[in-house]
C-alpha cells in the first residue's frame, strides 16, 4: 500500500527528546524538528494495511459513539479527511518532477490530478473511471468511481446501516484537495454495489464531486483551448 500521510516521525523525535523541567514544547536534543526532514524522504514508504485497518476501524467506532445518524457519521469521516487533502495537495504538487509541476487550472485538469496522482499515492493504482454527469439539471457534477476502495476492504456494514459508506473518509480527502486547489466542492461517497455491473465488484463506490456555482461560472469564462 502506498504511503499514507500519517506522521511516523513524531514518535522517533519524542523518544530522542529529553525531559526538560519547564512545561511547553519539547525539542529533540539535536535540534531537528519534523520541519527539518526533507519532504521526499517518505516518498516510497509503505504502511501495512493491517495497521491502517485497525486505525480506521477505531476512527469509525469513535465517530459512531458520538453521532445520532448515518448522515452525521459520514460527515464526521468527511471532516476527518479534509485537512489531509489540503496538505496532500501541496505535498504531491511539490513532489512531481520539475518540468510538469503545474497547478491544475481548470476542472478537468484537477480531476485528472485526483484520479491519477492522488489515487496512486494513496492506493497504488489510478481510479477506475471519471465521468461527467449527464443530467441537464446538474451540469457541475462529476463522478469518480472506484471498484474496490481499500479503506472498505475489511468493513462489513450491518444490514441496518447499509446506506453508510466508510469511503466518506476518502471523499473528505478529495474535498480537501479540491478546496486547496481553489475549486470549492462537496464530495460524497455512494455505494453502487448492487446492479448489473455491481455484481462483479460488490464494493464499487462512486464519489460524487459537486462544484460550487462560482467555480462553474469561472470555468465558463476561461478560453476554450
Amino acid at each position, binding site marked *: 500500500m502506498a504511503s499514507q500521510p500519517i506522521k511516523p516521525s513524531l514518535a522517533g523525535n519524542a523518544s530522542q527528546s529529553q525531559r526538560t523541567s519547564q512545561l511547553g514544547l519539547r525539542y529533540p536534543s539535536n535540534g531537528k524538528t519534523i520541519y527539518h526532514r526533507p519532504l521526499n524522504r517518505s516518498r516510497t514508504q509503505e504502511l501495512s494495511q*493491517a495497521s491502517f*485497518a*485497525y486505525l*480506521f*476501524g*477505531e*476512527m*469509525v*467506532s469513535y465517530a*459512531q459513539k458520538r453521532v445520532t445518524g448515518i448522515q452525521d457519521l459520514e460527515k464526521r469521516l468527511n471532516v476527518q479527511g479534509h485537512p489531509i487533502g489540503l496538505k496532500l495537495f501541496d505535498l504531491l504538487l511539490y513532489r512531481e518532477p520539475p518540468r510538469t509541476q503545474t497547478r491544475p487550472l481548470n476542472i478537468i485538469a484537477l480531476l485528472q490530478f485526483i484520479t491519477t496522482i492522488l489515487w496512486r499515492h494513496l492506493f497504488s493504482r489510478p481510479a477506475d473511471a471519471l465521468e461527467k454527469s449527464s443530467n441537464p439539471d446538474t451540469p457541475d457534477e462529476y463522478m469518480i468511481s472506484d471498484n474496490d476502495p481499500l479503506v472498505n*476492504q*475489511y*468493513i*462489513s*456494514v*450491518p444490514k441496518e*446501516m447499509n446506506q453508510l459508506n466508510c469511503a466518506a473518509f476518502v471523499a473528505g480527502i478529495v474535498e480537501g484537495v479540491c478546496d486547496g486547489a481553489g475549486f470549492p466542492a462537496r464530495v460524497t461517497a455512494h455505494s453502487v454495489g448492487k446492479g448489473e455491473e455491481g455484481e462483479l465488484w460488490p464494493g464499487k463506490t462512486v464519489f460524487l464531486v459537486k462544484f460550487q456555482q462560482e467555480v462553474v461560472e469561472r470555468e465558463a469564462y476561461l478560453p476554450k483551448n
Partner: protein
Amino acid sequence: VYALIIINKAGGLIYQRDFADGLNKLNINDYLVLAGTFHGVHAITTRLHPLHPPPSLDPSTRPDPPSGIEVLETENFRLQCFSTLTGTKFLLFTEPQQPNVDKIMGKIYELYGDYVMKNPFYQLEMPVRCEGWERRLVGYLRVLNSR
C-alpha cells in the same frame, strides 16, 4: 469440512455454520448447549494431568502449560479444537481422513482476524454477523470441499 463453531472467552456460542449437506441439523438451543458443554470439558481437561511437572525457573526448559482437548476422533468425523491466546476456541468438524487440518485452521483464523476483528461494527464476544467474513469463509471452504 463439515462444520465450524466459534466459542468466545466465556463459553458462549458466537458462530456456527455447516458446510456439507446431509448433516443432522440441530436446533439453535442445542448448539448453544453444545458450545457450553465443550467449553466446560475443555477447562476440566486442562487441569487433568497425572504428573506434576518439576518447577523450573528457566523459561526455555519449562514445559508448556497443559491445554485442554485438542482432537476428538470417531469413525464418522474428527473434531479439532484450536484455542487462541485470548481464549476464543475454533471447533472444526471434518471427515476423518481430511489432511492438513492445521493449515485449514490457520487460514480460518487468519480470515477471522481480518474480517471480524478489523470490522468496526463488530463488538467483541458477541455473535459474528459480518458479511465479509461469511463471504470469504464460504468461498474458501466450498473450494476445499469440492476438491
